[in-house]
């Protein structure tokens, strides 16, 4: 029994190292002079260039035509992540509210229409989607980046399931007190849904931040680059120069991962709850 526990820990440690080592190598290497990387490869121990390189990545533009820095791309990613999460939650809650609390003609039809989004990921409608967004003049805009993505069957069903667990008596009581639908939604449902909202917000923020294909298609203007898509440009730049600025690229990679990782680690409990419950 005792030796079993030790094997368990060993296996878990190997697993944890498998997860950690890639990131550690990139981080440690980012703090070295690029010459060291070119001649000696990735580094296991941190160097002494940390402050300088992160300062450079944050403030200076390298390989972009405009003044695109980690800072400007992270701001775009923030807008994308927050807009994505906020938008999904608002329109999903509203739709779920309509589906659960109103006697709606053709409710099943609406339900299926929302369900259909699950069947239509971007890849099955890639060119026409681009044309629609272009036709509406939304290329290179935050609206174009966010709005087309915020319809969400999973979030709607998530709230629909949750609303169904709220006892009828609450609505009866609210109606006795002459509360209308808006009142009921804002004063009763919203406070009751707080943890649900927090959980799904965390998931959606990470998913929004990590969008890749959609921003590539929607933006030609580099000032709208998110950091996840901007990485590709940094990579192209590295492959073209004789002395590749690996340190700069590594720092960009670390900066691109940091915000979503922090969110997931700091809000671990809500994150796990949101993930497990939303897929039910």
């Amino acid at each position, binding site marked *: 029994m005792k030796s079993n526990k030790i094997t368990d820990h060993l296996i878990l440690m190997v697993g944890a190292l498998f*997860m*950690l080592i890639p990131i550690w190598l990139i981080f440690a290497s980012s703090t070295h002079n690029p010459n060291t990387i*070119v001649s000696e490869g990735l580094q296991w121990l941190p160097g002494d260039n940390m402050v300088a390189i992160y300062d450079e990545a944050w403030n200076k533009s390298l390989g972009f035509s405009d003044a695109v820095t980690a800072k400007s791309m992270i701001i775009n990613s923030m807008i994308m992540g927050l807009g994505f999460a906020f938008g999904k939650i608002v329109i999903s809650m509203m739709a779920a509210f309509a589906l659960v609390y109103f006697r709606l003609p053709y409710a099943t039809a609406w339900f299926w229409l929302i369900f259909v989004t699950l069947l239509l990921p971007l890849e099955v409608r890639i060119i026409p989607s681009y044309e629609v967004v272009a036709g509406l003049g939304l290329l290179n805009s935050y609206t174009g980046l966010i709005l087309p993505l915020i319809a969400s069957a999973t979030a709607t069903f998530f709230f629909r399931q949750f609303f169904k667990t709220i006892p009828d008596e609450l609505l009866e009581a609210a109606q006795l007190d002459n509360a209308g639908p808006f009142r009921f939604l804002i004063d009763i449902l919203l406070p009751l849904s707080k943890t649900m909202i927090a959980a799904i917000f965390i998931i959606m923020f990470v998913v929004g931040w990590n969008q890749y294909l959609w921003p590539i298609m929607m933006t030609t203007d580099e000032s709208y680059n998110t950091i996840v898509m901007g990485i590709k440009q940094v990579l192209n730049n590295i492959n073209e120069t004789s002395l590749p600025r690996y340190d700069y690229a590594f720092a960009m990679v670390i900066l691109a991962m940091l915000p979503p990782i922090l969110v997931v680690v700091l809000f671990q409990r809500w994150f796990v709850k949101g993930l497990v419950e939303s897929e039910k």
Partner: protein
Amino acid sequence: MERRQQFFHSPLPYVFLAPQILIIAVFFVYPAAKAVYLSFMLEDPWGTSSLFVWFENYQILFESAEYLSSIGFTLMFAVVVSFLSLGLALLLAVKADNIIHGQGTYKVTLTWVYAVAPAIAGVIGGFLFNPHIGIFTELFAMIGWEFSFQTDPVDATVALVIVSVWKQVSVNFIYFLAGLQSISYAVKEAATLDCISDSKRFWTITFPLLAPTGFFLLVINLTYSFFETFGVIDTMTNGGPGGGTTSLVYKVYRDGFVGADLGGSSAQSVVLLLLVLTLTFIQFRVVEKRVHY
């Protein structure tokens, strides 16, 4: 259960539904319908003239050796990635469920990779497998394997699989651990009394109880390998070398967006649509069973 109590205001629910429905109509249903329509048309690249050609686009597609090899690669890749990431995650989840001390630490260290974008995972992979600066080339050289993911399609596939699995293990781990922890203590205790052997107990009690979670995750993992690995492929191999790692999704993007072959790309989109339909159908059959379990 039908809700007894409801509001009656008639136009109001439509106001609440409208934003969601409008976005779905404009950005989902219309483009998808257009893709189906375009898949039956032959259009010149400037869109000045088009011709209804029935299934010609599909015929060309399935006669193209490139497309067939892309199907082969995608299926093989999806199956390998799904099974490896499910197996690894299950092993780790079972071990994490066993231990008492330090479970929280392992949970965090094994789950945070969820937050890494596939595209970023691909960039990191590209560095680790890089023949000049990476660590894997040396590692493989020690066992006599001349590893070169930039020139050899098999090596490129191996590299993509490792990175894609690395990225996916955490999600599976979370679900498996949640599944394991929902098995009641009484069941576990009874099993321990009846059966001394750890591995036998796992295969006869725990594994069957986890099967519904496993089936559900299988669909999630297949979907991930088909669709979300686009970011990994685009940053690591660009579908190369020699088109050897071009997945179906990567090909749709390449042919339609970069190559501007509307009819052909739309036909590929429709094939993908059928794939999603199948996966969703399977998923819902399984979820239904899960509920009744």
